[in-house]
């Protein structure tokens, strides 16, 4: 299934195949390969949705993937289903004329005919079929019109294939030379399309010419032929393009009843939504509603999921109690790990609901149009707006939302900076440290300012990062930014639900496996080694000291916390934390904070309960708990000096703001970029930035005293 971008391909694909699609990647690249079985009467075929193309002359690596599929270089298609958008028939026919040159059997589906009709124009499909030489079926995917006829036509053409004929009207002199050259190349085993041969005869810089350097005889023929051809009237390097467009314009005129375009409704809406002042105001309002909804609607759902997992833990506990290792593995490792993944699901579903509604209605393109200038100077483009804004809630849906960007380099740049936006999981850390160190000393105003500054920091750092990425890491030619503002329409609910379903499923499947595995590793590191003897020893050391607790209950709780914190201190994770302490001392962190940071690498929100255990308060501490604030305020270095000063607190917050402490994010980046290279790169650069940032803050603290 091939066609221009935005020609209604996805809608038609969904309508033809239902919900059985398989989403994967083409080998080695990030281009998504979407395919599904399609029932054609008695037979079942595989329908592959090839990424949208404007032309067969591939401009980028990713377009090369699509053109290779069409030209049968990666997998030989039995039949092409070419989708033509009736509203933009001329440009779609230009692409068709290139496809026709390939000589593959083809069936044409025309979409958007209903919208054309609403504009008072009509398409003569019989005449179009006659001119193109293949079957032409008009379809309205979401209303299921024409789908049965299309299935029949596909089945018929698989039995008796028909290839298109399209006489673009190249001069005979040119076509004879194209035929001669094609034949000579075929004889030496080079299978080259007519388009490429024609391009070589018109342009000395054609890629085909470059590949002929070892064949002086043919090269000489090409040069001679080009010389002759260039004598023909009106021939230039763009001759091929111009001729095709002339043909496409002629066909389009012949099959549509009138060319006048009425877009009154869309134009009236656009007068408001892309207005200089009002357009921006509406945009801010829309974004506010979207993100407010994500916070308000996701909150209760996330609590519900957390509650469900806690409940599940309670149900399971009796089954495994008596086996302390198994109990901890299942409750703290497995259930907590899976729960930690599933809890992100509501945010992802809600965000993708809004993205598909905005995309389906046509507003997403307007948002990109409005924001392009703002993001353009940093080397991004307008389409990066939604992914980056989403990342303030959570980087994972943000990274997944970068799919709306067709330019692979811009998309990668957006993915790589998305986790710098301050996500909601960082909030507990900020709340804890600001509550403990900023608010008591500097007052509520500076506390609020610190919270704002922490959210702003990531955005501020992202700008130079993108700048460097574009110049150093993601070099190479970039496609021009091209955007179409489609007519406004009601979103197709079926497409909205399918988008939510597939994104949700994909997230649970890929991110889930990696996060669960990592949580188990961290669990094991923080649990082992431990033995009954250790527990007894820590209990004894607690009993040996004097205690002021009033009741037996309090004493038992304090004893339990002491044992927990000693166990963690002596676990592999604790040992590693102490071993790595020298690395963190220059930025003002001791082994307890270092261990907390290490434990937080799979998921940063883990740091608060970890610090609770490390500072001897038990794992139930949360950011609002005044005990933990107090314990951290009072903590000292071995020499008695205060461990956490306001500078250390800010340093720690900066560290958390910039560091990539989220397995789920790395898993999502792995999934989206289809390689370990980019998640590794992201992890390294963000950790380095975090360390550098915290070090700078510490340095200021030392200088300022």
């Amino acid at each position, binding site marked *: 299934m091939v066609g221009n971008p935005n020609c209604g391909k996805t809608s038609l694909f969904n309508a033809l195949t239902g919900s059985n699609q398989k989403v994967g990647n083409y080998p080695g690249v990030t281009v998504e390969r979407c395919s599904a079985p399609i029932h054609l009467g008695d037979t079942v075929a595989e329908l592959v949705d090839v990424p949208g193309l404007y032309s067969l002359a591939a401009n980028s690596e990713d377009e090369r993937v699509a053109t290779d599929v069409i030209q049968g270089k990666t997998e030989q298609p039995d039949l092409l289903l070419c989708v033509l958008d009736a509203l933009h028939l001329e440009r779609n026919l230009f692409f068709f004329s290139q496809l026709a040159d390939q000589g593959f059997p083809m069936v044409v589906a025309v979409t958007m005919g209903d919208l054309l009709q609403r504009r008072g124009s009509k398409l003569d499909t019989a005449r179009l079929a006659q001119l193109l030489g293949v079957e032409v079926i008009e379809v309205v995917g979401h209303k299921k019109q024409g789908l049965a006829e299309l299935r029949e036509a596909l089945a018929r053409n698989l039995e008796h294939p028909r290839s298109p004929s399209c006489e673009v009207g190249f001069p005979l002199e040119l076509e004879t030379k194209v035929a001669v050259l094609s034949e000579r190349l075929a004889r030496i085993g080079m299978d080259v399309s007519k388009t490429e041969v024609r391009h070589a005869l018109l342009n000395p810089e054609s890629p085909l010419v470059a590949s002929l350097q070892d064949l002086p005889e043919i090269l000489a023929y090409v040069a001679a032929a080009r010389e002759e051809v260039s004598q023909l009237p009106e021939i230039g390097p763009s001759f091929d393009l111009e001729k095709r467009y002339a043909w496409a314009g002629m066909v389009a005129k012949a099959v549509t009843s009138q060319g006048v375009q009425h877009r009154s409704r869309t134009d009236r809406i656009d007068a408001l939504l*892309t*207005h200089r002042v009002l357009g921006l105001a509406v945009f801010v309002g829309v974004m506010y509603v979207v993100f407010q909804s994500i916070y308000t609607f996701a909150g209760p759902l996330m609590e519900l999921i957390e509650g469900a997992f806690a409940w599940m833990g309670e149900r399971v506990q009796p089954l495994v109690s008596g086996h302390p290792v198994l109990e901890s593995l299942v409750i703290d490792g497995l259930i907590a790990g899976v729960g930690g993944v599933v809890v992100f699901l509501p945010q992802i579903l809600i965000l993708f609901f809004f993205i598909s509604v905005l995309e389906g209605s046509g507003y997403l393109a307007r948002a990109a149009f409005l924001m*392009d200038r*703002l993001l353009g100077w940093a080397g991004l483009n307008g389409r990066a707006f939604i992914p980056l804004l989403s990342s303030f809630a959570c980087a994972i849906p943000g990274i997944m939302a970068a799919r709306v960007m067709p330019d692979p380099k811009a998309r990668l740049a957006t993915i790589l900076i998305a986790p710098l936006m301050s996500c909601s999981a960082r909030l507990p850390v900020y709340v804890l440290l600001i509550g403990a160190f900023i608010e008591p000393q500097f007052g509520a105003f500076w506390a609020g300012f610190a919270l704002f500054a922490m959210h702003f920091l990531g955005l501020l750092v992202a700008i130079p990062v993108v700048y460097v990425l574009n110049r150093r890491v993601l070099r190479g030619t970039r496609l021009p*930014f091209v955007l179409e503002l489609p007519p406004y329409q009601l979103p197709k609910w079926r497409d909205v639900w399918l988008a939510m379903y597939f994104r949700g499923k994909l997230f649970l499947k890929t991110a889930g496996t990696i996060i669960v595995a990592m949580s188990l590793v961290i669990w094991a590191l923080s649990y082992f080694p431990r033995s009954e003897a250790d527990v007894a020893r820590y209990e004894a050391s607690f009993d040996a000291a004097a205690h002021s607790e009033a009741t037996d209950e309090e004493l038992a709780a304090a004893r339990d916390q002491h044992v927990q914190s000693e166990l963690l201190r002596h676990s592999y994770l604790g040992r590693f934390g102490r071993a790595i302490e020298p690395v963190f001392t220059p930025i003002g962190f001791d082994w307890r904070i270092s261990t907390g940071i290490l434990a937080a690498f799979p998921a940063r929100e883990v740091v608060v309960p970890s610090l609770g255990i490390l500072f001897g308060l038990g794992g139930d501490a949360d950011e609002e708990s005044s005990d933990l604030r107090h314990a951290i305020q009072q903590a000292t270095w071995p020499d008695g000096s205060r461990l956490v000063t306001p500078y250390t607190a800010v340093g720690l917050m900066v560290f958390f703001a910039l560091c990539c402490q989220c397995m789920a994010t790395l898993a999502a980046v792995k999934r989206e970029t289809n390689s370990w290279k980019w998640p590794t790169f992201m992890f390294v650069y963000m950790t380095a930035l975090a360390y550098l940032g915290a070090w700078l803050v510490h340095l200021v603290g030392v200088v300022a005293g």
Partner: protein
Amino acid sequence: MESIPLNSTKTFWDLRAGMSARVVKACSDCPHGLRMQELGLTQGVEFKVTKVAPLGDPIEILVRGVRLCVRRKEMLDFEIEILE
């Protein structure tokens, strides 16, 4: 080839909302120039500026029945003349 008077050659920087223009010369060797020609902006074609974004760029043009948003600074491979 007829020569073009210097003062009538304009670029995409000179376009304002509502203007009509014609492509005088398109660069086929420039990567952007080729892509934009594939999108219909071939030599001699006329187009109309239908929108200018609130921040001045990008602009939306109507060419061959298609409304296309482009960045002015990425369209400098094209020489244009303004019709009205």
